[in-house]
């Protein structure tokens, strides 16, 4: 299981046909803390607060290329053998969708900031186009919407910011991001996307929040997050946006997990999920996974998340640790 959950990307459609754009940009986080002995009593009706909530800090770097306006710019990604998280990529096989988003009033730094802070609004995006490459290059003239090609080079003019997203997994996971900036002073008509083009760094300090101390070995533990007011981005926690509770168990030490924060899904040893119903509480009895959930135990690192299955937001709205009392 890949750890990142993806950002759903903006789109632009027209009356001349619906469009659809889903692209993943992002991240996922997490890591776990030391599973030190806990001496305080555990809860079976556990009220979570902001003290139990993680805080996400992410930074996206992406190259900015000055290019000749009005030209049929070539995007060459033959040299992209690692994605923005450092995972291996076969550019000729894995890159199956490329998206091009146009912004009128935002600079690359502002767009990157809004992306990582989950603050990009639909109204920020002036245009969205997609191409489906069959090799390791794609040109502006190959982009379209709703199955129709569009004269993208005609729109590639000064005063606009373009973000290109090379995606894998049928467009669901971003492999690289770059900004294309039309400039009258530029003559270049080609941009190279390689392993140095973009990088995503995520910092989650799992020691910075308090774990929830629960009764060990019990499956009837109730978690209540009605008192949580802040999400992992520092925004108001709107609990109705979450659709799923996930509980992960790791054999690895928290230190090992922390060093691989972008690969939690790959490192998880057992996982369970339950579908939320809008209520700010859930009973762990309702968790389902490939193995039966038998309660929180010592000797493992437990991470609980609230997230949206089809969210624009790849990061959990709530993430905390559960720790068995002794």
């Amino acid at each position, binding site marked *: 299981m890949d750890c990142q959950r993806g950002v759903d990307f903006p789109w632009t459609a027209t*009356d001349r046909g619906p469009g659809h754009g889903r692209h993943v940009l992002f991240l996922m986080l997490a890591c776990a803390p030391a599973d030190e002995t806990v001496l305080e009593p555990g809860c079976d009706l556990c009220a979570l607060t902001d003290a139990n909530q993680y805080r996400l800090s992410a930074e996206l770097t992406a190259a900015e290329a000055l290019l000749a306006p009005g030209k049929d710019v070539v995007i060459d990604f033959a040299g992209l053998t690692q994605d923005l998280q450092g995972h291996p990529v076969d550019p000729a096989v894995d890159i199956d969708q490329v998206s091009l988003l146009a912004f009128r009033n935002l600079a690359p730094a502002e767009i990157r900031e809004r992306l990582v802070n989950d603050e990009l609004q639909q109204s920020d995006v002036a245009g969205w186009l997609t191409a489906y490459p069959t090799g390791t290059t794609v040109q502006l003239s190959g982009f379209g919407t709703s199955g129709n090609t569009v004269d993208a080079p005609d729109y590639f003019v000064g005063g606009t910011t373009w973000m290109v997203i090379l995606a894998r997994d049928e467009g669901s996971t971003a492999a690289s991001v770059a900004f294309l900036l039309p400039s009258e002073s530029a003559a270049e008509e080609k941009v190279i996307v390689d392993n140095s083009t973009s990088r995503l760094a995520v910092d989650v300090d799992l020691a910075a929040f308090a774990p929830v101390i629960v009764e060990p070995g019990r499956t009837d533990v109730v978690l209540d997050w009605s008192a949580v007011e802040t999400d992992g981005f520092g925004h108001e926690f709107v609990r109705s946006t979450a659709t799923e509770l996930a509980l992960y168990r790791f054999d690895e030490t928290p230190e090992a997990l922390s060093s691989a924060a972008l690969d939690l899904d790959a490192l998880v040893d057992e996982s369970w999920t339950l579908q939320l119903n*809008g209520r700010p509480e859930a009973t762990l009895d309702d968790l389902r996974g490939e193995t039966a959930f038998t309660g929180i135990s010592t000797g493992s690192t437990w991470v609980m998340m609230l997230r949206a299955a089809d969210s624009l937001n790849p990061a959990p709205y709530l993430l905390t640790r559960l720790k068995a009392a002794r």
Partner: protein
Amino acid sequence: MILLLLGCGTVGALPSDSATADSDSGPVDADCSNEADAHVGGSGVDTVPELRWTAPEGVAAWAEFDNGDGLTRTSRVGSTGPERSALLLGVLPDVSFNWRVFVSDADGARCVGAGTASNGALPAGVPASEGTAASGAIDGFTAAPILVPGVTDEQWMMIFDGQARVIWANPVKGVNGTIFSTEFERGQDALLFLVQTTSADLDGSIHRLSFNGQQTVVATAPGLHTDFTQLGDGRYAGLTWELRDIGSDRVLGDHVVTLDEGGATTVWNAFDEEPYIPSDKWEAGFYVPDPTALDWSHVNSISWDEASDDLVITGAGYDMVARLSASTGETRWLFANGIGDYPDTATVSLFPHGASILPDGDVLLFNRGDFLHDPLHTCSWVSEVHVDTAATTVTERSRLTGESCLLTSFLGNAERIADDVTFVDWTSAGRIDQLAADGTSLWNVSLSAGRAFATADFRAAGE
């Protein structure tokens, strides 16, 4: 159902004779009897409690309830009985609220039941939105479909309150297509919405979705697409497609139809009312079942004017706006670029979508602008347009552009909701505004990147 009845006892302020006006909540008193045998229960949607009570047959009865945040709302007045009920739309999720039941008989209006209850939660997975409301915003409800374009299993219907908060959200299941338009059902506690067909031969449908979550299909028609409106007699008016061969061209045009559960009747046909002028402007590829068909008249919105029983339609093909008789389909006037009796309308109408008659007879027109040829420098706008039928002139009297440049390339609509406040749905830009005459946003909601609104509707508090 999570609604919890906490008890009956505290009662409301002075009973109001008005069954429609909202007012500030008054102090609690104990002047209510218990004769209504009233109680609150779930409705099928957790954030819409249902209040049930008894009242003598023929006696007007209604409920007042607060929204959990200091605003008192009033249900519709019902006069049939003896079993009465009201869906309490507008209570904030997860709050306690007070309710009171009133009757008005020969002894006057009096409170016959009261209590306090807790409202339920929004469902899981509600699309993220942000909103603000300022002084001058018109209190009421905004209903909007929320789409991930091209993904029909992720459609939501949502209602925002006067403070731009989500108070009702329903994931729409079981529809075979994309929701393009919604309206509050006139005089009812329900929404209507249109699911566009994919072909001139297949049915599109109009659905009724009660605030309690019950959904039914109320009308269907082959080729039904994009927009609809309610007429005064309980029927609907909508748009359908027709494919016709003209010379060597296969042309996609539109009808205006009236429809109900019994079927649809054409009252206006673009092939009869607009000349077909062959042009490379008519693009192939829009109509999926036949990619060779040329997208011609592209009629895309319809509204109904109660005072005149007229319809107003827009069509992107010729940047056309037309006023028709709803009963006969007679064209009152039609202005467009390159056809019709009104010259020089190119600056008034450009890729229009959404028009309505204002009380003074002018037309409120949503223009998307030239999103096809210059999308990165185009801002959509709303015009107030005067049509002088005697002089055959069309004049733009005022223009609203919103607080920032927003491009709407898909749908788009505007309604005048008060003398100086205009409701603007920027659909594909994921934003809805209430704009003051100077363009200041008095109320707005915005969606996170990746989702869009379809055609929304506004219902003022008390309507």
